[in-house]
């Protein structure tokens, strides 16, 4: 876990790659989360909606990103985690998670950092998620 002294504005977490993401990864996440929207596992349903195939659950990428952050700064320490979904993630895609310290400050007697978060699709280079988080740093 990174310590307060190691965290300054601009500090980056080690990048982490996940993938290739598979239909099995999508189904496993849907089973765990209870979101059974068929567009993420039923090929016929996805095609009937005009998509070339099923695509990943945005919350899977968000979940991977959230745990990437807590692996770095501690599971107990997250106070805010916010994501916006951009490009969809498709079967076979690799994704890369990145987190950068944007602000380091004291608030309510606690040391805190605000992070800028990014998930990119390795294949397109495009952003799948842009996000922000706040952590306390004990």
């Amino acid at each position, binding site marked *: 876990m990174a310590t307060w002294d190691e965290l300054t504005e601009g500090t980056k977490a080690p990048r982490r790659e*996940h993938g290739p993401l598979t239909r099995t*990864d999508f189904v*496993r*996440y849907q*089973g*765990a*989360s*209870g*979101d059974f*929207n*068929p*567009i993420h596992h039923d090929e016929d*349903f996805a095609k*009937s*909606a*005009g*998509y*070339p195939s099923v695509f990943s659950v*945005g*919350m*899977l990428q*968000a*979940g*991977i990103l*959230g*745990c*990437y*952050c*807590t*692996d770095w700064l*501690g*599971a*107990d*320490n*997250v*106070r*805010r*985690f*916010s*994501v*916006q*979904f951009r490009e*969809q993630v*498709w079967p076979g895609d690799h994704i890369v998670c990145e987190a950068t310290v944007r602000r380091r400050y004291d608030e309510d007697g606690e040391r805190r950092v605000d992070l800028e978060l990014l998930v990119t699709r390795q294949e397109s280079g495009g952003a799948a998620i842009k996000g922000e*988080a706040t952590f306390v740093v004990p």
Partner: protein
Amino acid sequence: MVDKSKLGLSDEPSTIPIERGKIREFARACQTANPAYVDDPAPVAPPTFLTTVNFWSTGATSPLAQLGIDLRRLLHGGQEYVFHGPPPRAGTELTFQTRVDKIYEKEGKRGGTMTFVETVTEFHDPTGRLVAEARSTAIETGQAPTKES
């Protein structure tokens, strides 16, 4: 089509027990082996874990279910969790309630008119303390977006 008369609607409060096995399953689905999630006998919930309220809300009264969104045109625009202290641990029970906070429209680049629905779910512990808040943005597109959009 989104039924805009549902703005401000709240569902009935429900209760979610935070469970060790569910946290382990969720953490593994999120591709982490962090011992704080998978080994601790009373693990803390991962940042997006409260999405599992899906299993505990009563679907018939869920405001999102009542909005009439077409799943073929539904996109998840964004999601936010705020924790007032450490995230909840296994062994705690939280009461949650969801309300439709905002409904608005934007013109999309390729998908026609997009309707945005923001819902807010508040989670309280048995003492009545506000533990966490979740804000979800759902988007109903005018038509299915292309792969490149």
